[in-house]
């Protein structure tokens, strides 16, 4: 296996006197998809910001090559309506020399070429995600971080966004870090699932649910090719005061 491009060793994060993350060990490998799941307030976005270098860890180390190119698709972004911005102009950010045909090509790959002249603040949630992904295709980063890319996308579009993410991984060979608040259903192509609740509760490989004959019998017409189920293996409880207790039986 190739060596990790980002490595977190014993990382802890305290913001405004509040413990947000503790004892995080995490390695991001090239071409692999890592999905971070966890309840609200688990520190998923903070972890992503540490990975991106936006928040310096309070303790522990972040190892990252300084030449590493990062792509970021932020969570719940609403484009600023005070700023006139067409999709074409937006795609040119960070890659000034990009040609018009390359931009059309990238938009076609995400099936959004019809948005070329559209104003950014008029896009729907799903259209915005496509445009952000088209920009990622043009940038071709080494690591792509997507913070809840399915938020604001309707159910039919979600499967397609997953397919696009997989397509980007296959095409640009980048590592992908994906944040999701859904604890049980993750992207099927995920290599590692990290379950986060301030610390890493458990991690592992998801089970590809749509191949399961029992599932196919139950939902013969469901198009869930890109969704897998993740079985948690926790060995501790979280009490309401934030402390963890070791459990006798994993659940």
């Amino acid at each position: 296996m190739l060596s990790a491009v980002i490595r977190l060793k014993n990382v802890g994060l305290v913001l405004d006197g509040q413990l947000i993350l503790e004892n995080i060990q995490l390695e991001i490998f090239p071409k692999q998809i890592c999905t971070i799941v966890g309840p609200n307030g688990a520190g998923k976005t903070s972890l992503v910001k540490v990975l991106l270098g936006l928040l310096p860890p309070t303790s522990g180390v972040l190892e990252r090559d300084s030449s590493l190119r990062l792509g970021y698709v932020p969570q719940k972004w609403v484009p600023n309506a005070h700023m006139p911005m067409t999709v074409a102009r937006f795609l040119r950010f960070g890659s000034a020399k990009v040609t018009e045909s390359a931009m059309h090509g990238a938009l076609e790959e995400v099936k959004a070429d019809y948005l070329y002249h559209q104003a950014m603040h008029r896009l729907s949630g799903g259209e915005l995600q496509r445009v952000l992904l088209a920009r990622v295709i043009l940038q071709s980063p080494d690591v792509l971080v997507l913070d809840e890319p399915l938020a604001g996308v309707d159910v039919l579009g979600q499967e397609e966004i997953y397919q696009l993410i997989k397509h980007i991984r296959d095409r640009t060979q980048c590592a992908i870090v994906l944040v999701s608040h859904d604890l049980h259903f993750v992207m099927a192509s995920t290599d590692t699932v990290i379950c986060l609740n301030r610390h890493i509760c458990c991690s592992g490989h998801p089970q590809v649910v749509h191949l399961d004959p029992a599932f196919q019998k139950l939902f013969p017409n469901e198009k869930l090719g890109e969704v897998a189920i993740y079985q948690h293996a926790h060995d501790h409880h979280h009490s309401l005061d934030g402390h963890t207790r070791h459990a006798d039986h994993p659940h």
Partner: protein
Amino acid sequence: MPITLTDIVFLWPALVAGLLLSLMMGPLGSIVLWRRMTFLGDALGHSSVLGLAIGTLLQFSLGWSVFITCCVVLLLLPFFERFKQTNDALLGVMSHSFLAFGFVLIYWFQPRQNIENFLFGDMLNIVPVDVVKVGGIVFLGAILLYYFWQAWVLMSVHPELAKAEKLATAKSEIVFNLFLAMIVAVSIQFLGVLLISALLVIPAATARLIATTPEEMAWRSAGLGAIAVMLGLFVALRFDLPLAPALVAVMGTQFILVSSAHFLSIKMR
């Protein structure tokens, strides 16, 4: 009163300085709007009174003392954020207290100082040396705009995206603040405390209605500002009005006309 050749000879420094400043205010004002920093423009303008007062009392360069005051305001902002105040509240507090401190200082030590020039500026007394000074600052500003424009625009689009992708850094943020302080300092003596943020905000707000990209907005805002400077000078001279209010009144009219046309074109569609 008809305009004569003597008037034009007398007015050219004001015209050139005004045109140069309005060109700079276009892109700068656009960024101020995008980043929802209109209160900051106000706060810098108002705090300049303190700078002008200190400069006058110490017989120190007014430009530098305003620049330093503006830098102090910009430095205090992140510091005071720790006291759980919103940016708007902090800017309101600073803007009005610095204005008051400035006036108190002036009245205390030099009760006979004419403060009207502080409020409305003194554009007609611009001399050729001032034009050279303004030209130098605008030239420096143009270089900064060339190098930092992409970073500043992306900072306005999404600050964290810009930082994560290393397209903007803490440096580009600091340079923007210094640039803003510099333009406020150089224009405050001509435009006055009350009207300086109008020059930043109004042409940019008008340009927003007729632009589809950030660059278009910046250029059109600069163009609208330049037209307003020329019309404002003409109106002020023709009807014997104070220049700065005439200038801002022209800009206000531009906004009303463009937004009415914009509204009608949407209705007609």
